[in-house]
Each structure stands twice: as structure tokens, then as C-alpha cells.
């Protein structure tokens, strides 16, 4: 009934167990897995794996490191979100990620949930994914034979599905150095404060004061995976950020997402919110008197 619980002390040991025990599941904070494991209505979807492999006792998964001054940042997969958001380098260089974490779950959940877990769970509404995609982050994957890195948007392949092969685990998320002058933000809305995102939008913007030099838009909960809004990006890139242009980009963004209707919100509502969020994000990132702070 209860799964076997493994506590490996190294990545290689963890990978070894995951490769040899069919159906074994890696677990870090457990905020998704434990919910799925609890009995609800008898016979009503309880999901208990045969074995759990804890990633909480592996030092290299628990650290945030800068590879060299000004170089890439490597966030261990099992670092709790609270620690990620409190890290001075993350705060200084990845403000949209910090904003996403601050609206993620509750303080208790943020204390144990991890970045690797949020990506590995592969919810289309995962809050950490849009900012990481906007920053061009990569997922470091370690398997029995090798370590590879794939962009976050390629790692997430569908609802609950990732590019992980059997035996592989997420070991870190890496983000390249951030150029100065770029600003970024993450907007999201739930029905109540603590709710899965109905829609989330991460925006990373570089301007010369008037014109958009570069922009990256990544949206969550509006498709089977978090996705780049490339049509809206290309309209804005190189354009003056006047209200008319931004409105046209918002219309493009609304057209290029593919949300669904579910218990939480309608397809039309989600489409509409993407446009609102795009306009508000650009207003926020181009407002000279309101330098960005954490959203809360």
C-alpha cells in the first residue's frame, strides 16, 4: 500500500534507484505528489507510486551557485522556492521569477516546494515556467549516462509531460547572465489569492527609452504548455511602445494563445486576460516613476 521511500545521498545514487525500480517517482517538496497520494473518495483517483526517491538529501541539488562573476546562475532543483526568492542574485537579476514565487501557493507551500518540482510536475499553469522561459532558462537533466540541458519550453511537452527519459531527473535550472537595462515582470490572476493561475504572463523588455529593443513574452495556463507569444513579440520588437501598437500586440497575443474552458474559467476569459496582462505589463515596465518592485 505505502510506497518504499528512498533517501539517496548523491545524484548518481538517485538516478540508479530511479532506473532500477519501475514506477519510482522522485520527490522533493512533495506538494503535488502528496496531494495525489492521499485517499479521497475510495476508488476515486488515489495515485500511489511503488517507490519514492527523495531528492532532499543531495547537496548539489540544494545550492544556488554563480558559475563565475557575471556568469550563469545555477539553481539546484531541490532548492525550496522560498530560498530561491530570497537569494540576492535572483532578486537582483530575475525579478519576474521572484514575483511568480511570491504569488505561488501559500507561505507554507513556498517553504517546501521546489523549482525542479514545479517544472517536473509540468502543469500548464506552473507559475515558475513563464518567467524562466522569458529569461531563456534551461533545465539541467541528469540520467544514468549523461547530463544534458534543454530550454524550459522544450522540457515541458504537455500537461503532466516532460522531456525526461526514464531514469532521468531534473538536477538544476540554469539562467544565463542578464544584460543591464532589461526589466521584467510576471502578472497572474487566480479566482482567489491562493489558487492555480487562470492566466500568467511573464514579460522581459529592453527599450532605448522609446522603442522596444527586445522583448520576450511567455504565458501560462493558456495552452497545453507554457508558451512564447512570438507573434506579439515580433510586432513589438523594434516598434515604438505607443498605446496603439501595444493594443495591436495585445490583440495578437489574444489570437495566438489556445486556452481551454474548464471549471476555473472560460476560454474567452483567459484569452481576454492575456491582452489585459500584456498592456499592463508594458505599462508597468515603461513607467519611469514606478521602478519595478516585487508585486506584493
Amino acid at each position, binding site marked *: 500500500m505505502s510506497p518504499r521511500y528512498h533517501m539517496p545521498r548523491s545524484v548518481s545514487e538517485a538516478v540508479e534507484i530511479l532506473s532500477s525500480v519501475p514506477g519510482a517517482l522522485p520527490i522533493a517538496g512533495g506538494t503535488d505528489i502528496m496531494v495525489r497520494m492521499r485517499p*479521497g*473518495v*475510495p*476508488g476515486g483517483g488515489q495515485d500511489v507510486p511503488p517507490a519514492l526517491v527523495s531528492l532532499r538529501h543531495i547537496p548539489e541539488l540544494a545550492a544556488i551557485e554563480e558559475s563565475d562573476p557575471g556568469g550563469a546562475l545555477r539553481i539546484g532543483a531541490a532548492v525550496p522556492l522560498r530560498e530561491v526568492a530570497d537569494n540576492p542574485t535572483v532578486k537582483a537579476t530575475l525579478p519576474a521569477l521572484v514575483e511568480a514565487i511570491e*504569488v505561488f501557493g501559500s507561505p507554507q507551500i513556498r517553504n517546501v516546494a521546489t523549482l525542479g518540482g514545479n517544472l517536473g510536475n509540468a502543469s500548464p499553469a506552473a507559475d515558475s515556467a513563464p518567467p524562466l522561459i522569458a529569461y531563456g532558462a534551461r533545465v539541467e537533466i541528469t540520467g544514468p549516462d549523461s547530463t544534458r540541458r534543454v530550454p524550459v519550453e522544450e522540457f515541458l511537452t504537455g500537461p503532466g509531460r516532460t522531456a525526461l527519459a526514464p531514469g532521468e531527473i531534473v538536477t538544476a535550472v540554469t539562467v544565463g547572465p542578464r544584460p543591464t537595462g532589461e526589466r521584467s515582470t510576471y502578472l497572474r490572476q487566480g479566482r482567489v*489569492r491562493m489558487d492555480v493561475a487562470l492566466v500568467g504572463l511573464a514579460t522581459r523588455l529592453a527599450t532605448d527609452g522609446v522603442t522596444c529593443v527586445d522583448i520576450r513574452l511567455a504565458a501560462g495556463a493558456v495552452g497545453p504548455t507554457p508558451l512564447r507569444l512570438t507573434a506579439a513579440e515580433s510586432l513589438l520588437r523594434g516598434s515604438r511602445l505607443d498605446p496603439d501598437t501595444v493594443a495591436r500586440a495585445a490583440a495578437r497575443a489574444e489570437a495566438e494563445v489556445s486556452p481551454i474552458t474548464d471549471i476555473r474559467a472560460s476560454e474567452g*476569459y483567459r484569452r481576454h486576460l492575456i491582452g489585459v496582462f500584456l498592456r499592463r505589463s508594458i*505599462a508597468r515596465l515603461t513607467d519611469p516613476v514606478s521602478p519595478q518592485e516585487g508585486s506584493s
Partner: protein
Amino acid sequence: MSIGDPMIRPDARAKVTGEARYPDDLAPADALHAQVVFSNQPHARMVSMDTTAAAAVPGVVMILTSADVPVNEYGLTMFDQPVFIGLETTGRSRVPADVSRWEADHIALVVAESPEAATAGAEAIEVEWEPLPVVADIEAALTDEVLVHPEHESGSNSYYGLRIRKGDMAHGWEQADVVVEGTYHLPHQEHAYLQPEAGMAYVDEQGRVTVEVPGQWAHEDQEQIAHALDLPPERVRVIYPEIGGAFGGREDMSLQIVLALAARALHERGDSRPVTSRWSREESIVGHHKRHRGIITARLGATREGKITAVEARVHLDAGAYNYTSNKVLGNCHLAVAGAYEVPNAHIDSHAVYTNSTPGGAFRGFGGPQGGFVAETQMNKLAEALGMDPVELRRRNALREGSIGITQTPMPPGVTLPEVIEACSEAAGMDQPLAPEAPDGPFTPFPTLPPEPIAVKRGRGFAAAFKNVGFSYGFPERCEAEIRLHGDDRIERVELFHAGAEVGQGAHTVDLQMAADAVGVPVEMVEGHFSDTATSGDSGSASASRLTWMSGNSILGAAEEAHKAWLEGDRPAVGHFRFVPPPTTTLDPETGEGVPNFTYGYVAQAVEVSVDIETGHITVDRVVSTHDVGRAINRALVEGQIQGGVVQGQGYVLSENLVVENGHILNPRLSGYLIPGIGDIPGRVDSVVLELADPLGPWGARGMAEMPMITYAPAVIAAVHDATGVWFDEFPLTPSRVLAGLEEAAPH
């Protein structure tokens, strides 16, 4: 003097530290574990059930089914529900047991050595069903094509009705310069108490089948258990441990009868181990009733001067598969739908309707929130149509001392609605323009989206209401207390015996305060013995805002009796008293004439909101909740009830959206059914507490616990209208519903 002292509740420390024992904490290590098996069939006839494989599951001790229930029926006001659906019965029930009418109908109880074995046993039960067409909602029920209870032989799913025929409707409409009308869809609401259903049962040393379980009325639980087990009530004992919230959701049976059956069956086998059971959150949400959903159509007419001339209403409440308390809830809704106003001409028809959906039942306000929503939204629409201030419109129509009520009899003395309306209006500054910015408060509403000032519109709404205190419509109403005075020359110790349920509201705290004051000793000298049918007389339920009012009167009587005995030299001096309030009556079936209630409580609320018109997200900035409580026995507990009622109202009107499709609840989890969290509650709640004595209340106290819930939804809806110009006749106001409403109303 302990009356009026906001003393710290004696149970606070144990509850905060976790020492308090709730029903799921009771089981000793050797206890057996029971799993209730739901049918999962909203409407189906049982073809066969085989428990052979389940009984063979290692650890399974026994399986109880319909064949094991002496009288296979129960119900708080009507026996219309089988304990177990099944093919074999004793033949002593009037309710056919072969048809599942609700997805949470029980088909068996599996008793095992461990929870895991009980669950495995439950999953091994094999049942074959013949599906029947599901009566999914009120509209489907009203066609009467499929009957939920054909055995009632009425030919209709609409099984209980009430009427009001007052005055001359033609005259009323003729006098009306303005008429407003609307059709309102009221949603379900889930109680979402902290502690899901749980309990433990055993046969005590005196041979009584004993159930320790959370509930709201120990003696009623005892009676229903005794009926199903075919035992005299005194052979059944019900004890309430700490109770993790109730709100009406524990008025009806959940685990009481099945645990009692199991305890007796084990005892008969010579197994003396207690048996325990608990529901998961999902089982709790699927397995107990909800606030009724309903459809109400209403018309309201008034003169240019704002005097009401006529009210017409047609009410349908979804009772679900079984009555529970639907007939009583309907009665309250029936009174509330005309509002707390003088209405010369009225024509109201109300019906409870069976469906194969989740049962409607008791929930804080008990029909008042549904009726009150319609009455107050109609009044706010009328104010708009007249171009009149909504407070002024209420001033001109409010029930006052000596008013004739909607049931054509005088209101019970002590009508203070005009004073409550004035106090609320003044505290909220209703005669001043609404400030453009939200006021400061202890809580900052915590939108996940930074506000966009240009898209945020502020608005303010007002609503007022009344609610009966105590049982209505001739339902037997009483409350017993016993006080024992110990000592020699002077009283050294006081014992209070009372069955009233402490469901979290602080009932036992105020019982001790009232007993201390009634006897004339410090509260520390009073020792309470509570909520055990073996030691206390019947108190009636913790419901209908009645407990402080009824308990207080019973305690006053018991103290007086005890004092008499003391003077006569009895040691200990024992006073037992059974308080009976003035009688009430049913309504005349044709005209609705009658005396439905013996007293009322009065409430008014003003609410300020901010609406993000681009996202549809609403935050409540300020609530002024005004109550005449007659006398605050414990001011801190009164304010706790106000704050809690407002938060529960916040969920009802804004976020709680139970999705029921074809008889199945699709979101039986708190991640999908969204009650407000700390980040969602109003930024500021100002409690305005008036103390205008109820002539019959103990120390002048009035009931108040349901009242904050009743006016909140219409006040918020009015505030959203004030902000956006759009009326919402259906809620909860989820962001997407708000946005759709705004878009529909926008000029194209």
C-alpha cells in the same frame, strides 16, 4: 458580574495548543476502523450486491448492509431516507431501499482492523446497478417526467409548498408607480468546516450504545439512532467531543447511525473494541447536504414616494434527493423573500423540489440568505428606479414596533429594524459621497494582480434584514438546564448541566457566564457538564441563532429553582428547568396567515467594493455590519460571529462555486471549491453592536449568529452595481462571470 465581560473562552488554550480532543482524536490504539461505502449512483436501481470478496479481504471484521438495520429509515423532519440502499431489509421501513437517489447514498459499512483494510474491503464490494434517468436540477424536476420518490404517490417532485395571500394584488399593482422584477439563481454553498465528519462508537458500561460524534443537537441524534436501531432512546447515548465547526452541516446524520449499528453488532459478537470512522474532505463535501440552490422570480411595486404596494414571488428550492430540513428552510425563505418591510399586498408561492442532486439543508441563515438576497436586491433595484437613496427607501418601509408582518399577524414585540438601519447608515457614512480611495484596515486585500487605478471602480451597497431566533412554525421548542449548588452556609461550587452544542461559536463560554450571573457567583466557580444525553436534558439544537437565547432562559429558570431548593436547605441544591417560549403556529395553507416565530434579530450592512473592470476581480474594502444583539453576553464572541459570518458571506457571493453535473459534484476539494483565504477577506470589518433589549431575551439578549450572512450577498451585489452600473442576478461573482456581465451590458 460576568454578563458583558469579553472573557477569554475556557477552551481557547486547549484548542490553540492542539490538546483539545476532536472526534478524530478519540480512538484508542485497538479501535476498529469503519469505511462508509457510497453508491456513487445519483439515480439507479440496485440489481445485486455481493460482499463475499470484500468480507474475505484480510483485516475485514464485518460488513453491515441494509439487512442489518432494524428500521432502515431516518430523517430530521421526515423519514424519507434509507440508512443503507440494498435489496435485503427487515421490511419495517416505509422507504424503498432498492434505489439509490443520490451519489452519496450509503450501501454498506466495512469494519476492519485498519483504515487500509476497511478501504480495501469497500473497494471489493461488487454491485450491479440498473441506471435510471437522473433528475439533475429544479427545471428537470418540475417536468415530473421522472419521479425521485414515486413511493410518495403525489405524482410530483414538488413535494412541499407554502403560500401567502395578503391584501388585494390588483389594488397593489394599480397603486404602484414603479415595478421592478427579476429572476434570481441562487447557488449552493458548502459548509467547509475545518473538521470533516468523524466519530467513535462503543457500548458503555451501562449497556448503552454510545456514539461520540460532532453534531448540533445531541438528543435529536439520539432519537434518530434509536429509531433506526429500534431501541428506546435511553439505550442510546450521544456525547459531543470538541466540534470543528458546524454551520448547519451537522444537523443531519452522517456517521451517527452507522457507527451505532457497528458498535451494537460488535458488542453482540462479544467484541468490545470501539469502532471509529472519518470522512476525507472529498467524502465530506460529497456526503453531506448543502445550502439550497434555488430559482426565485419576484416583482416589487411601490409608489413614487417609495411606499411598497405589492410583492409577488415564486420560490423553488432544490431539496435534492431527501428532505433533510428543506421544508423548514423553505419556510424561512418564504418569509424572507418579502423583506423586513411593511407589505400591504403579497402573493407568494414557495416549493421544495426533489432532485437526484446533493440534498439542500441547514446552513447558517436557513433560507434567509436566499430569500433575503432577492428581497434586498429588489429593494436596491427599486431605489434605483425611483431615484431614491436606498437607506431612505428602507426607512419608509421598515418593519417597526406594532407592524403587521407578511403572515398577517403583529410582529413579536421588540422590533428594532429602524434603529439598526440608522446606526448602520451613520457608521458607514451613507449620507456622504463614497471616498475615492479604499480606507485603511487591518487586512490588505491581496490581489495577485497589481491594481490598475484606471480600471478600478469603487462602489457601495446597503442591505437590511431580519431573521427568526428559535424554531418556527409550531415546531416544538424548549431548552433544559440543570444547576446544582454545593456548599454549606454559602455557595462554594456551582455545577451546570447543559446539552447545548459548542460548535466553535462559544456557546459553553456564555453558558458559564450566564450561569455565574444567574446564581450570583464569579464565573470561575461554575463547572460545566456539557453535551451528553446521559447527563443533560434536551437543549434543542445549536441552530436558528437560538442557543444563547434559549440556554440563557433555561439557565435563569434553573438558577431560580436551585435558589429555592437552597433556601429550603437542600445540599446540593438542585434546580432543573425546562424553558418553553411563546408558541408559534403553522401557516394557513391558503392565506399563509399565522404566527411563525416568537422573536427576531435585525441586521443592516454597508459594503464598499473595488471592481477591476478589465479582469472582473472584486475586492471588498470595507464592511459595516450592524446588529442589535439585545445584550452582548460576551462582546468578543459577538464580534467573532460577525467577522466569521462576513467571511462566509464573502465566499458565498464571490468565490464558492459548487459544480454539480447530472447529480455528481465535480469539485469536492478545497482546491477547486474556493472558500476565502486570509488574502481574500474584506480589508476592514466594522462591527456595530446595538444593545436594545429583546423583551423576552435573557438579560435582553437576542440571537445574532446567522444575521451577518443574510445581508452580505445583496449588499455586495448592490456595491458592484454602484461601481459598474450592472446588476448581477446570479452569483458567485467569479471574475469571469463579472467580466461577461460587464461585456453584455456594454454598448456595442
